[in-house]
Structures are given as C-alpha cells and as structure tokens.
C-alpha cells in the first residue's frame, strides 16, 4: 500500500500481550527497542508503547512473528 506522498501506508493497530506465555527470549526488544523492553529480573516483556504510530507496524509484525511463545498479539483497530 502506498499513500499519495509515496510513503508506505500501514493500518492502525494496538498491541496485546499475553504475559503468562513470555519466555524472555528478548526478540521483541531486538526488533523494536522503542516499543518493547525486558524486565531485568526475569526477562519478561515490558510494553513501552501500547499504541505505537502506524509506521511501526512492520517492526511490530516482525516482533510478533519472531516471538517464540505467542506472547505478542497485534490487533488491528476497527
């Protein structure tokens, strides 16, 4: 999808986390360090920004795909 000014157009979305599943692999924090961090105590994901700007959509989808435990869910806004 391309908008008129040539920039890629991404859907509006928010992030839902299933904390109980997190295994602390840290892939999300590597994919999008502006959005995800890890609790230094147990490595469990910390969401820095539940409603990131839509241009972060590809990075968040990548974090969702790389997460080995199904902790990250990307929900498209209605």
């Amino acid at each position: 999808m391309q908008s008129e000014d040539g920039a890629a157009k991404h859907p509006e979305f928010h992030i839902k986390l299933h904390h109980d599943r997190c295994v602390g692999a840290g892939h999300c924090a590597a994919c999008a360090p502006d959005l995800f961090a890890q609790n230094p105590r147990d490595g469990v994901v910390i969401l820095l920004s539940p409603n990131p700007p839509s241009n972060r959509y590809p990075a968040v989808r990548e974090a969702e795909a790389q997460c080995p435990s199904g902790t990250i869910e990307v929900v498209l806004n209605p």
Partner: protein
Amino acid sequence: MNTPNTDVSEPKFPLARTAGKLDPPPEYSQFRAEGPLKRVTLWNGKKAWLVTRRHDVREFMLNPNISADPETEGYPALTPARAATVKSYKTILTMDPPGHTKFRRMLTGEFTAQRMEELRPRVEKLVDELIDKMIEKGPPCDIVESLALSLPISVVTLLIGVPFEDDSKLIKWSADQRDVLAEDLEVGRRAHAEMLAYVDGIVARTEANPGKGDNMLERLVLEQIQPGHLTRQEAVHMINLLYFAGHETTANQIGLGILDFLQNPEQRAKLQANPTLLRNAIEEMLRYNSITHFSSSRVATSDIVIGGQKIRAGEGVFALLSAANRDPTVFADPDKFDIERSNAKDHLTFSFGVHHCLGQPVARLELRAVFERLFKRLPNLRLAVPFEELQFKENMFVYGVNKLPVTW
C-alpha cells in the same frame, strides 16, 4: 523375523544421514511432501508421529496440549539409552507449565539483551586469546579442541561464576550422558550421577558462602534457595543443565559452522568481502546445521489437529526442527548453505514455544565473536585432512564433528 520394522509405510526412526553428513536423512523430504504427519516405528515397536513441515512444527510447539515430561504416559523414547536416562533429568527441558514457567523465570533475567552486552567484550577477548594460542603453537591443530569447545566452556564458567576444576571431566560426563546409541546403559547413568554429585559440591560451597550475588550461582542462592523458592536438589539439576547445555550445543555449532565455510569457499569469500553479512551468516549456519537433530520429543495430552490431521491424546510426537529448517516451501533451495538467504532467521533451531532455547543469545554472541574474527585472522584456514575422513556425531543428541583438523 521382526516384521514391524520392515513396514515401509511406518519406517523405523531415527534414520541415518545417508545423503551426506551435513544433510538430514533424505527420507525427511519425502515425509514432508507426503503429508503433515508421518507415522514411524521406534526401537521398542511403539509408534510415534513425525512433524516435518515448518509451519506445522511451529504450530505444534505452540500448542498448550503437549507435554515434554518423560513421565507423561506415551512420551516417546528415541532409543534404549535415551529411555534409560531421560527420566532422571529433572530440569526445565523436561518440565511443563506451570512448574516450567516458575523455574525458567528464575534464569531468564540472566540472558537479557543488557546482560549480553555486558558479556560481549569478555567473549570477544576470549576468542582473540584462543586464536592467539593457535597461531603461537602453529598448524596443524584440531580446531574443535582449541577453539570450538574451549570458548563455550570458558563462557559458561563466566556465566555461572564457578569454574569446573577439570574441564576434561565436564566434557566426558556430558558426552557419556548424550550418546543416544550407547549399548552399555550404565555409562550414561553413572556419568549423570557423578556430574550431579560434583555440581552438588559446587552449590553447597556457594550456599556456605554466597557472596554478594556477583554471579549467577550466588544470585540463585541468595534470591531463590535461601528464601525457599528452590531446593538444593532442584538447583543442582538446574546448574547441571546449564553446564552441559551451555557448552555442548555452541561447541558443536562453532565446529560445524567452520566446516560449512571450509566446504563452501564462495560463501566464505562473500563474508570476507562483506562483513555486514555476519549476522545473517550465523542464522544460516544455525538453520543449515540444525544440531539438535532428534528434537523435539513430545506427547499429546489431549487430541490435537496438526495440518488437518489428528494426533490423539497419549500419542508420541517428534517435531523435527531439522526437517522444518529444510522445508522447501519456506526456504528456497533448502539444502544450499547460502549466507545471503533473506529468511535464514526463520529457522527453528532454537525450537519454538515455551521451551525455546534459554541460552540462544549467548550462543549467538559466541558465534558472532568467532566468525567476526576467524577468517580475518587466519585467511588461509583449510582442512588438514580430506572431508571424508571426518567423524561425525551421529550417535549424539547434539550433532557435530568429533575433531576438525585444520591448517593455515
């Protein structure tokens, strides 16, 4: 005559690497093409399912209705040696949630991105020192012994905080416990018992003098054992696992990774010409070599459907990470070692789901440190013996090469 094993529709498992030592058994391609699940016959005549497609392996490993606990009815034992020892490994590898989650989270804080950044300069220094020693001694040398194995042993010592007083003991105990084709079943049992007794001594000494929590073992004592979250025995099993899982896997991957490049000089030339390929090259060797080649053993705890086919409660399953990593519908020309492969990182070598490898950031850190340096410092590195003379660990739970004689 023993008929079950001759039934071609339910072939024997495990299978041999008849297509080449760097390729999985060729039957996997056929199984993957045939359907989502393949029924196989184990050594004891029992049946199990193989999952071979990447998508299905991922989905299966995420399913909450599977168990990694050998005590669960129907858990498939790969070989007699595995059956003899696997129930005595009381670690997070063979636990299910919620117990698994509780114990794993005692350790995950040790493997965060920040911790890895603190570890990086020390690992890089170790690699340089080991290569210095190789150069000082001069060629030829067995690079498994002088680098591939020495590095992870030093790193695991750094991580846990207590050195093994005798590395050769650690190596032997680890090897004896993971020879899946061993005929003398006592060897594995004895090695396991001896290693647990040794580690018990390490934990006991740390309990007596836990310091200020400056290393992993001291933190485990202060934060988990003393407040009563973890028993001494549980801690011993945990540290035992970290000692062997922390060195054996990475050692084998470093050895095979070196061999990948020596066998594919055009790929090595690409890496030397363009060091930004390093990260992807590491992912590609992880995909290509899939060193935990018999993983993962599971049993269904209720009926589940994979790829439209049913696995019944109590049936054993091997979700083959090594087959998933060569799935041609995901990885184009999957049997080629290609460091420019755009989706190399989609491999499942560190498994998937709750048992995703805890130490993977350390493994990646060590691999990057090695391959960032090795061919720069030894640009003429090559095999000192013909490839055909190399001995591979087909009998071991973690695949690799026994010795890798090189010269430069």
